[in-house]
């Protein structure tokens, strides 16, 4: 949770109300970070053949076609004429304040940077896979593509390590904004100090509500939510699950003290059971 004194915590505010679905963020991310090509599949799911975040996709633009009005007039919503609403949203690693992936990583490969972001050290990760089911957003995954750098008995084997958005750690080090934000033509992806982004987002959602936009809400901006607030949060136009996001994510380690107590009780019960079986004698 702590960032060093010298750096402000930075992140993304992704305002989906101005996303045009151009996928410049997906492309810029792949190019800058040398994220490998992992095949093309036709899904039939609007303009989305990327489908989800994963080891080889660190920005993913979701497309949702709805028969719903873009604006609401008071409490009243009317479908007039061609009432297709096309929602687009560029998803990314949330860089959680309380990050489950980082908590459960047994090697220390996942760490928190001086910018408050969560990054995998690929020279440390041993591919144990614990972070994969720990992430409440399904962001991080193991790369199963062949790795050119593997040699000896492991030549030709899959990469085997986990990968995800680094919030362009290398670019931040050089004083640049992340590649996706840089490439975004509509400023749907905004990069900056998290405090500033939260203020900007609060003003933006207020404006959209005043203008009568249907379903405008912030997602992940509150520091008191189940993951302590997202480092990358969103302005959405419908419920989070419509975009494939969990409505109330909680970092699993919040419950870990209780789980350790239960484990201690169970270990004690095991010992008691074994002793009881042994003192029962030879019958």
């Amino acid at each position: 949770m702590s960032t060093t004194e010298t750096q402000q915590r930075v992140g993304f505010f992704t305002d989906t109300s101005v996303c045009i679905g151009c996928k410049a963020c997906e492309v810029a991310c792949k190019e800058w970070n040398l994220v490998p090509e992992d095949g093309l599949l036709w899904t039939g799911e609007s303009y989305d053949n990327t489908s989800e975040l994963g080891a080889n996709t660190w920005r993913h633009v979701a497309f949702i076609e709805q028969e719903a009005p873009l604006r609401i007039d008071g409490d009243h919503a009317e479908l007039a004429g061609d009432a297709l609403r096309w929602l687009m949203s560029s998803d990314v690693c949330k860089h959680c304040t309380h990050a489950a992936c980082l908590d459960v990583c047994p090697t220390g490969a996942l760490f928190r940077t001086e910018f408050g972001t969560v990054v995998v050290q690929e020279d440390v990760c041993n591919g144990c896979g614990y972070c994969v089911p720990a992430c409440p957003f399904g962001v991080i995954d193991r790369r199963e593509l062949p790795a050119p750098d593997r040699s000896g008995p492991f030549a030709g084997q899959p990469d085997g390590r986990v990968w995800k958005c680094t919030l362009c750690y290398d670019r931040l080090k050089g004083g640049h904004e992340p590649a996706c934000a840089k490439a975004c033509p509509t400023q749907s992806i905004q990069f900056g100090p998290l405090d500033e982004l939260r203020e900007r987002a609060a003003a933006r959602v207020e404006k959209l509500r005043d203008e009568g936009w249907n379903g405008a809400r912030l997602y992940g901006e509150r520091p008191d939510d189940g993951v302590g607030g997202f480092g990358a949060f969103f302005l959405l136009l419908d419920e989070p699950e419509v975009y494939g996001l969990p409505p109330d994510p909680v970092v699993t380690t919040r419950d870990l003290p209780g789980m350790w107590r239960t484990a201690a009780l169970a270990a004690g019960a095991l010992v008691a059971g074994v002793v009881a079986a042994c003192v029962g004698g030879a019958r």
Partner: protein
Amino acid sequence: MSHDGSSYYGRPILKEPVWKPEVPCYFFTGGLAGASSVLSLAARLTGNERLAKTSLYVGLAAEVASPALLISDLGRPERFLNMLRVLKPTSPMSVGSWVLVASGGATTTAAACELLGVAPRLKAAAELASAVAGAPLAVYTATLVSNTAVPVWHEGRRELPFVFAAASAASAGAAATLLLSPRDAAPARRLAAAGALVAEAVAAGMRRRLGLVGEVYDRGPAARFDRLAKTASLSGAVLLARGREQRVAAVAGAALVLGGGLARRFSVFRAGFQSARDPRYTVEPQRARLEAASAG
């Protein structure tokens, strides 16, 4: 394609685990190793030397198999030593790696002293260390899977450690029963039968308490392994009750209890995959929580 409104084209929100069948096999061998160490010491202290020795060797065999299974599951097996790079209490896998190292070292030392008939004091100290590390070794894997976002694992966090503890005790008792004459195996038989019954009773209670997210235990591979675990464990316990008079019943019962313990781990393991795959199990409990919070 139209939209059903409650998910993104029915796609999962969570990623399925990437773990291979080596992992539930390790839940079994780790449990067998840990509980056998406890059983060995308890038998030693109650004067059953044959049982103590047998369980010590069973523990050794299971301790040797365990790291091999774990290393084989890694995406980068050549980096297995990175598991001991840090010790993190927030990561049951990190804590468990250290427990496995401590337990493996202690059990190996004790078994070597026993085999060579040397250093009785070192042996006693190693046996104590092995038993102290053994109980957490048998249980922590339940905490490991509970400490994820997978609904059926996380929501089962109150019961899973008891399921694994009881199943581990049952395995240790059953393995010793297989190898010992019926005269020396009475405590092992009791432990095997009682452990198997308790594990299955707690697992059934967990399934009921979990409600919607527990549905996965009624479906697919999780359900098939669940039925297998129940059938094998219960019939094994019944046969073990007749094990004092009939060696065949004891051997068959012990084998069934071992199989039941392995099947139980596979049922829990597969249930996690099924639970992660269906977005309903992620979304609906979270929606209910939000509604309860806004109502309260």
